[in-house]
């Protein structure tokens, strides 16, 4: 997660290490660190502070993540602390670590393609290509084939779409670039 992890004090280092054990409530193979939602860890007079950022605006897993962080740190003997939510800068799938991407692929979820830097200066006309397949190809996480097709733009959670492999014929989830 670019920019999030600074040169830390020893206590902060050990909290970062502990957070590697906290997994995403919906996708248990990936840790919150690999998902890129932990933005800051601090220890001060009031105890520890972990700052997280939501993936989607309405991600129902957010409060579960906060609970899991609190219980993991308390189990490890860390006393009072708090979890804060921060919206800016907005989370992006580009923050998922290379290890997180590998874990997703092994689990059967195709990792997201990189986000092309989107111009935010002023409005743009959007062009739609409704009859052509998506320009980006999503390789099948099982057989690696690039011959895949989207079956549904929305899937079982806010962050995923449904795809189908035309080579091995298996359906799979695609972690949407966000």
């Amino acid at each position, binding site marked *: 997660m670019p920019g999030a992890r600074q040169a830390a004090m020893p206590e902060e280092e050990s909290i970062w290490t502990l957070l590697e054990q906290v997994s995403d409530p919906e996708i248990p193979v990936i840790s919150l660190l690999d998902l890129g939602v932990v933005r800051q860890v601090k220890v001060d007079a009031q105890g520890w502070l972990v700052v997280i950022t939501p993936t*989607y605006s309405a991600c129902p897993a957010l409060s579960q993540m906060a609970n899991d962080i609190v219980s993991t740190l308390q189990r490890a003997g860390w006393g009072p602390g708090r979890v804060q939510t*921060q919206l*800016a800068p907005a989370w992006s799938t580009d923050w998922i670590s290379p290890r997180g991407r590998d874990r997703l692929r092994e689990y059967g979820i195709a990792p997201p393609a990189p986000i092309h830097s989107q111009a*935010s200066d*002023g409005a743009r006309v*959007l062009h739609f290509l409704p009859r052509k397949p998506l320009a980006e190809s999503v390789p099948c996480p099982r057989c690696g084939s690039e011959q895949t097709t989207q079956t*549904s733009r929305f899937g079982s959670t806010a962050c995923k779409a449904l795809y189908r492999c035309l080579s091995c014929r298996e359906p799979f989830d695609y972690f949407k670039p966000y």
Partner: protein
Amino acid sequence: MSAVAADSVALAPTDYLLHLADNALVLGQRNAQWCGHGPILEEELALANMSLDLVGQARLLYDLVARRAADGSTEDTYAYWRDASQFRNYTLLELPHRSPLVGYAQGDMDFAITVMRNTLYTALMVPLWQQLCDCSDPDLAAIAAKSLKEAQYHLRHACDWLVKLGDGTDSSRQRMQGALEHLWPYTAEFWVSGKLEALARSAGLLVDGAALESSWNAIIDAVLEQATLTRPPAPEGYVSEGKVGVHSEHLSFLLAEMQSLARAHPGAQW
């Protein structure tokens, strides 16, 4: 959440934040009516997912208003304990998924209305969230940056359906054109610059109405052309006034369904 902004920063007026929040909540609730009734399974998932995004955006905005009010209110206070005349959403968003009938009449939901409304609204929100990403209120800018990503995805989805159905069979084309003509007059409300917009401008929010309108026109014209639909003439006559609290008869029914549980059990936790 980030700290309350410094003195030099202009905060968005409460009414404007509520307007943005109410738009998202009312359309989210309206579209959630398809849950269990979707035309196909994939679309069922899509509509529920988009509603979840919209309700999420509304929650962030209500929460921001509540924290700034610092009067013990919460996001729930705004969603569940205000009545129709206090809602600031565009009238377009509260209309049922069907052609005009009197308020209490029953009718089948028409997917053409759903697709057309989602397109008309989201084509407004993409350029608006884009503008608000750079606004002077840091908390609103943060919410806009998240909402923009979601709105862009929703717009792609809505436009895909619009083209598929518009440039589809005779029957689907006729229904899409009918939906367009039914909903078109309600978009006039987008462009009326009234108290709400004046408040937002005086607070230093960069809401450039002319730029917004030309972006919206460009998106709508491009997609209507691909869908082989005919853009109706500029609407004349009454312009709906949902954003100042004057609503159609449909909003109260929608709110009654949404609010009854919270009002039957005040303060309950679930």
